[in-house]
């Protein structure tokens, strides 16, 4: 019995150590002069507003400000995304650059807890840290809104958050995205936007048994993040006759239902389409070029 207790204690201790957050240190961040225009572009590409939109309880707040608080229901619990405006008490005004980068790219909160990957840091991890700092600077330029935190409704929160620490060993790939020298600049731009800020894989890539992204079948379709139904495959869109060419895919993303494209303007994908439609046309074309290259 004593031997069993010892084994269990050692196992728990190991799990505790292995599940500890591993944040980026402030010293590791590059010196960088923020580019607000780039930050705004990537803010749209990353779709921050879709989850961080203002709660219905905030009256008179511009619906385009990421004041947070609107409930985000997922199969593990309901989250109330953070106020991303520069308010020092309720927003991220008092956050350091390292705080922001650790949340967005490592899923570690300012208080050192693991964030559930409802925030798609598993994709944002592939972004250039300079781009993340640009988004941070853009957010800091927005008007401050008072919108207090609301704790997530998460069963067994401590266990689950610590469990995420273990999960990150399989579920969080922090390797930065690197361009493919055999491809065009626009293909690479599309690949970066899709795999990094666009976080398309989070819905469109199947999951392993441990709920990590199954990158061997990237974009082959996956479970719906809200729990029911499936999200379609993006592979072989042209071969399967869904779209005629890269320009057609780009048009669908740029115009959605306004130009008669079906299945792209409502629900979750509708929010995505609206965000992508705000990108420069060259970037939308780049996304189309990358997606068109995904073989069936």
């Amino acid at each position, binding site marked *: 019995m004593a031997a069993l207790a010892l084994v269990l204690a050692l196992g728990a201790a190991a799990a505790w150590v292995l599940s500890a957050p591993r944040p980026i240190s402030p010293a590791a961040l590059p010196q960088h002069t923020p580019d607000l225009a780039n930050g705004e572009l990537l803010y749209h590409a990353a779709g921050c507003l879709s989850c961080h939109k203002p709660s219905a309880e905030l009256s008179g707040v511009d619906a385009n400000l990421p004041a947070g608080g609107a409930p985000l229901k997922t199969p593990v619990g309901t989250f109330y995304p953070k106020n991303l405006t520069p308010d020092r008490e309720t927003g991220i005004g008092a956050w350091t650059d390292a705080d922001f980068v650790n949340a967005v790219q490592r899923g570690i909160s300012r208080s050192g807890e693991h964030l559930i990957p409802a925030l798609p840091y598993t994709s944002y991890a592939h972004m250039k840290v300079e781009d993340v700092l640009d988004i941070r600077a853009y957010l800091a330029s927005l008007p401050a809104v008072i919108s207090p935190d609301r704790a997530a409704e998460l069963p067994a929160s401590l266990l689950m958050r610590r469990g995420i620490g273990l999960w990150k060993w399989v579920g969080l790939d922090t390797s930065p995205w690197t361009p493919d020298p055999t491809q065009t600049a626009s293909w690479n731009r599309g690949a970066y936007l899709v795999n990094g800020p666009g976080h398309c894989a989070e819905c469109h890539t199947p999951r392993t048994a441990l709920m990590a992204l199954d990158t061997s079948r990237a974009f082959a379709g996956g479970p*719906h993040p809200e729990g029911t*139904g499936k*999200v379609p495959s993006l592979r072989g869109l042209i071969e399967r006759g869904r779209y005629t060419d890269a320009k057609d895919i780009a*048009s669908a993303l740029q*115009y*959605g*239902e*306004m*130009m*008669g494209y*079906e*299945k792209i*303007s*409502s*629900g*979750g*994908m*509708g929010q995505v389409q609206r965000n992508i439609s705000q990108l420069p046309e060259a970037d939308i074309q780049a996304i189309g070029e990358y997606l068109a290259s995904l073989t069936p």
Partner: protein
Amino acid sequence: MQMTIKTVMGVFAAGALALGLASAAMAASSPAEAIQARQACMKANGKMMKAMVPVIKGQAAYDKAAIDAAIASAEAACAGWGEWWGEDTKPGGAVETEALEAVWTDKAGFEAAGAAYVKAMGGVKASADEASFKAAFPDLGKSCQICHEKFRKAED
């Protein structure tokens, strides 16, 4: 009674008259019919979009006659619109529909979305040439999206 030709014709005429009156009034008599009618209206609009979008994209030549014909088909298919939204056609009822509860809880919004569509259609109908057609079209496409966003079930 004996079924003379006259009797048969009389019955037939009466039936045709009744059908004619019914379709003239466009009164859908069951939830299934109402839902089917509004779906047919939407399909006709889809076909209309397919006639218009390639012209906008520069992939097809502007043909006012073809566009006018598509518009006329859509308008004919949608003529009874107001009658097809009874309480018995709500989602969760006996017949499946992609309409959202919001149609009934936000009647003002639903009617405004419909009015925006009608206005945009007016703009397109009034366009006499390619340039004015291309200028008028975006409001029409937008009106489809705005209504569907709030009032139609998400496709995912």
